[in-house]
């Protein structure tokens, strides 16, 4: 079994309402000096295979097809 973590983040320049709201909230809670917050997603996957290289190819395909919206998001795959 292979475990992997996919991290999906918004592309630069794409508006991030959640990040903005968190900035505001942190400030209101007294955490000053937070320059910027951007929110993204992680997916922890378990794959029934032992072939790392193959797994990586598969996961990249999953990102392209489903996990990320490549119009607005970037992704990054890490086999753990």
């Amino acid at each position, binding site marked *: 079994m292979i475990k992997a973590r996919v991290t999906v983040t918004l592309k630069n*320049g*794409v*508006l*991030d*309402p959640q990040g*903005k709201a968190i900035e505001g909230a942190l400030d209101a809670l007294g955490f000053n000096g937070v320059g910027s917050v951007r929110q993204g997603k992680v997916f922890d996957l378990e794959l029934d295979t032992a072939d790392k290289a193959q797994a990586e190819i598969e996961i990249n395909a999953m990102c392209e097809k*489903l996990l990320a*919206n490549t*119009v*607005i998001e970037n992704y990054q795959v890490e086999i753990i």
Partner: protein
Amino acid sequence: MKSAVVLLPGLNRDRDMIAALTKIGGKPPVTVWQTDTEIPDVDLIVIPGGFSYGDYLRCGAIAARMPVMRAVAEKAAQGVKVMGVCNGFQILLEAGLLPGALMRNASLKFVCREVKLEVANAATAFTSGYQQGQVIRCPVAHHDGNYFADTDTLARIEGNGQVVFRYADGTNPNGSINDIAGIVNDAGNVLGLMPHPENLIEAAHGGSDGRALFESVLGVAA
């Protein structure tokens, strides 16, 4: 005119939409299910609102990749009219049939209220029943209706008159860029909009400003 409504698990304004199409068009639409690979011969395909697949991952993301959406894309390419409302709009974006993306509302909250819409392009198959620039009432009910497109895309759709509805009179409920509430594709046969015209079509709804949209696209006289 024949219409079809796409059914996907988690959609929940399907009954509202079917009621509107039936009441205004005079006959009920056919329905197609997520696993259907073919869509009957119709003039209009509607993807209603709701929370397909729970809106998990991203709104509309999973739905957009179901077999029925491939069939919808083929029909759209043939020029059949396609309309996505709310979740349906999100699905059309995720399926690449419309440009841009819908992000979480700027307030981060779900919002259900009546807004004002300006008909920014009355020359489409969907809006011919309205006057250019007419301001109508329409309810919204969504969590992710904050339209976003990169600068080039935005310039393009604005330049082409692809923006069909805009929130008017300061009623933008979600932070949408340029107050965009609804857009069509390049060819003008695919419409996506966040507000719910199907919930404002009769006296019981307290108004019928949404009717003209259905009358236009179904080709029935007002």
